[in-house]
């Protein structure tokens, strides 16, 4: 029967939910790494004005962040196999997350790069440093720490968006909760616990990010 809260059942399903949550966390971690890397590439390409590439990247970023992650995940999971690229649920999900959030992180990096004083660029030019050294030794070491809190906020957002990958078959915590409730005909405990698990991780994480924001003095 449904209705009410069954503590015994709640305790019984915790290990299964925890396994699902690990998949959610893994997807978040891999998606974040991809978004951090790809976003940086997008930002540097746009700043360096690489031939027509910077216009293409700009247009892609504007388009991709105005459209739903869910549809993008379907494209990657269902359309790519038609051109010979077949990805599993996790790989497709991570690629979808990484690509979507790279469009946000690239803007974050851009702001960070713009905040580096012009004098730094000029000094690097005066020392006739090679382009790669200008970026790796002068600009990025000053730009990246400043934007870490903003990047952290996107990691938290991504974590909360992982469940929509259940649409492409990723067995993350909400999928597990749905399976459990289908088996037991009790939706109350699994879905409520899933929500509590999200809160238990994302609330402390957001407190940490806020503290970091205050320390770096940047928004």
């Amino acid at each position: 029967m449904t209705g009410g809260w069954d503590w015994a059942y709640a305790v019984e399903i915790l290990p299964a939910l925890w396994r699902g949550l690990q998949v959610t966390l893994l997807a978040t971690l891999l998606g974040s790494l991809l978004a951090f890397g790809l976003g940086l590439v997008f930002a540097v390409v746009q700043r360096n004005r690489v031939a027509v590439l910077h216009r293409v990247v700009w247009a892609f970023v504007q388009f991709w962040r105005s459209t739903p992650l869910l549809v993008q995940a379907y494209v990657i999971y269902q359309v790519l196999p038609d051109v010979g690229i077949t990805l599993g649920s996790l790989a497709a999900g991570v690629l979808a997350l990484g690509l979507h959030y790279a469009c946000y992180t690239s803007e974050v990096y851009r702001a960070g790069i713009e905040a580096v004083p012009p004098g730094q660029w000029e000094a690097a030019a005066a020392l006739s440093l090679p382009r790669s050294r200008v970026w790796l030794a002068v600009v990025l070491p000053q730009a990246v720490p400043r934007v870490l809190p903003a990047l952290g906020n996107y990691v938290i957002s991504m974590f909360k968006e992982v469940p929509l990958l259940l649409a492409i078959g990723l067995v993350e915590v909400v999928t597990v909760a749905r399976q459990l409730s289908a088996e037991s005909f009790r939706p109350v405990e699994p879905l409520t616990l899933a929500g509590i698990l999200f809160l238990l991780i994302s609330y402390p994480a957001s407190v940490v990010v806020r503290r970091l924001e205050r320390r770096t003095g940047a928004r």
Partner: protein
Amino acid sequence: MLDSLPLILSFLMAGVPPTVLATVGGIALTVVLSAVAGLALVSRHRAVRAVSRVYVEFFRGTSEVVQLFWIFFVLPALVGYQIIPLGAGILVLGLNHGAYGAEIVRGAVRAVPRAQHEGAVALSLSPWDRMRRVVLPQAVVEMLPPFTNLFIQLLKSTALLSLVVVDEVVRRGQLLVPNLGVGEKLTIYLVELVIYLVLALLITAGMRLLERRAAARVGRVPATGVAT
């Protein structure tokens, strides 16, 4: 593959009204909740602030998909009746984005210079008039750009309603995918993406208009866009 484009277009366009309805309904609820919860966050009363803080952290902390499934699957088990999917969707969209909007409102109200509050006190305006005539008109100018982003997030979130079988754009696409040839999948999804892009551009254009009005009202030239 292009010969099936008219069919795909007409089939997907039929999903636009529910998507727009969910977006507009969600935005309306978001605006109300943002205003109420946001002003509560800057209240002088500790209890009011605490209640609002709990609402904001709860809805920002739990995933939107979980909230949607909870209202759709758990609530009926607890109270015995089911909200129609579109209604449940609008409720979740509004509650979720309202929590983010409350933070925007709080930030904008607190960003109004102290001297403005003090000036209003000196003119012996009532607390209500101080807020309504002095603080809010200035705060609104600050709020509108972040709200544009929030509304576009909300538009994108309406795609989640396909998971609880609301007959919107993405859901209709999912119905179409198995029935058409292999080469058509990309067309279907591209059409979907373009539909969202157009809706997002409409939101941006509408908000730009509001930004210009709000800025003119407090005698400022808008920072973004062309001054007229």
